[in-house]
């Protein structure tokens, strides 16, 4: 009988939303295969928080809880995941395709002699096998992939597999994996948390600005709308290359790929590279002077007007509406 294991990522001893998504989706696969299911958490002082996974379909949680694991180490964590997978006899291992998960999955794959299907946006079960669907060319294409090895590893893109908690209880079992100094080749010494707005890849709403803003001094218009909506701030490649905005805000093929509930593109014409990074957003709003701009071909709602006139009005009226 096959067994499914899902790794749930903790940051500051709190689960990321993508971990809940991964646990729930992996549990769904286990049910379809008639397989057993367990979740795995790693860290220090985590036994209490591990219980929470009961609300996402994990009746059994394996917790590797050691003081030495308080700081993240990709080398040590990968070893633990692989060792627990072996002990559990897991044939399918799921991780979130978060920055942590993407960093761990290849190492886990090598250790388990497994192939890794990375960044899946859909999973289907057919003939006892799992087919993953993942974006390529920044979302301009989608491929179906099958992992041919006995053990298979999948990572799941955040914000795609939606979840709601349902009351459930989990039994937490402590496990330990012997580690030596050699397992800590790479260790996190400090986490610098960016203040303020949510990251574009995690935000439920993203407001992005492009060249139509005419200069970095006008980006406060983007920030004000983002703040009213509690959203993240994005930017087109043109304005990042021009030095108006930092690299980590760039949305598109050589930047971030985002799929928020709502994406508001302001003064962005919609170059193919930009569309690749944001067209999987659930709703797209575009404000751009040029009614023929390609952004309007993907926008659900468009205003073909002056961003300097429309944007402040939208911010002001939304503020009033949301205050009600």
């Amino acid at each position, binding site marked *: 009988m096959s067994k499914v294991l899902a790794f749930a990522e903790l940051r500051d001893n709190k689960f990321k939303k993508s971990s809940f998504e991964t646990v729930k989706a992996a549990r769904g696969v286990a049910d379809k295969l008639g397989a057993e299911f367990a979740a795995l958490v790693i860290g220090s002082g985590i036994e209490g928080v591990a219980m929470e996974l009961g609300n996402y379909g994990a009746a059994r949680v394996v917790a590797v809880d050691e003081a030495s694991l308080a700081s993240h180490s990709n080398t040590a964590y990968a070893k633990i995941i692989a060792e627990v997978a072996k002990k559990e006899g897991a044939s399918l291992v799921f991780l979130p395709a978060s920055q942590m998960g993407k960093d761990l999955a290849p190492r886990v794959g090598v250790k388990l002699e497994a192939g890794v299907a990375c960044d899946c946006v859909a999973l289907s079960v057919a003939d006892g096998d799992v087919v993953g669907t993942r974006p390529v060319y920044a979302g301009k294409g989608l491929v179906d992939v099958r992992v041919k090895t006995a053990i298979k590893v999948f990572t799941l893109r955040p914000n795609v597999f939606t979840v709601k908690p349902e009351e459930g209880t989990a039994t937490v079992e402590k496990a330990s994996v012997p580690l030596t100094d050699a397992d800590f080749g790479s260790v996190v010494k400090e986490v610098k948390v960016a203040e303020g707005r949510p990251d574009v890849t995690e935000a439920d709403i993203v407001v992005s600005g492009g060249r139509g803003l005419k200069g970095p001094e006008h980006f406060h218009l983007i920030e004000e709308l983002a703040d009213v909506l509690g959203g993240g701030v994005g930017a087109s490649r043109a304005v990042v290359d021009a030095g108006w905005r930092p690299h980590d805000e760039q949305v598109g093929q050589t930047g971030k790929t985002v799929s928020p509930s709502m994406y508001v593109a302001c003064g962005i014409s919609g170059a193919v590279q930009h569309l690749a990074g944001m067209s999987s957003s659930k709703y797209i709003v575009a404000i751009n002077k040029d009614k023929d701009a390609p952004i309007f071909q993907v926008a659900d709602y468009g*205003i073909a007007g*002056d961003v300097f006139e*429309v944007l402040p009005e939208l911010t002001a009226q939304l503020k009033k509406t949301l205050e009600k």
Partner: protein
Amino acid sequence: MKVAVCINHVPDTETKIKVSSDGVTIDKTGVNYMLSPYDEVAIEEGLRIKERFKGEVTALSLGGDAHKETLRKALAMGVDKAVLLKDDSVRDSFAVAAGLAAELKSLSPDIVLFGKQSIDYDDAQVGTLVAEMLGMPSAAVVVKMDVQEGKVVCEREIEGGHEVVETKLPAAFLAQKGLNEPRYPSLKGIMAAKNKSIEEKPAAAAEVRVETTALKKPTPKNAGKILGTDKSVVPELIRLLHEEAKVI
């Protein structure tokens, strides 16, 4: 300091994807290729490490003859040596990594650099796979690197912030945009690159573990409505977002 940079030759970002008749690969007709943008950042970092610590920078690429164009660009930017690990078959990330790891084993570099991902398959796996195959630590999505005695202190991007990671050498690093501003090859560099030779050898055989069974185009979004041309339609937009889209 011995530095290796692994680079890839990929369709440029303007490319519109068409599915070829095999149903699993893109139609290469009319597609222009380029050095993958993150790999360019990796090359630049390699050159800066050499400028600071002396040593040698070797660029490696695994693929068909077309990859020579990208290796030529690396030479023009200033790398000392270029190696083409020749292979025309379709490889997955694991098989590419295994081919690179086999060559790197004999090269035994102190630092191996990669782009954080190739912009074709966006798999973001090869660099970390190679590191694990070579028993090296690694850091991915790196935006800052400080090479010290026997270790590198670097910063990598995570959701909503940065991690400061200390990594023992030898190690692999996967470069993110923002780590540096890659130089343009100088005219002198371009001329010199023409006279440098690219070493060619067959890539070590490796199994493909992840098989692509179909390539599809995503369902195109239906273009919505243009509500108007000025701020008078803002109330209508807010109503639609609230009542139809239910996002606010």
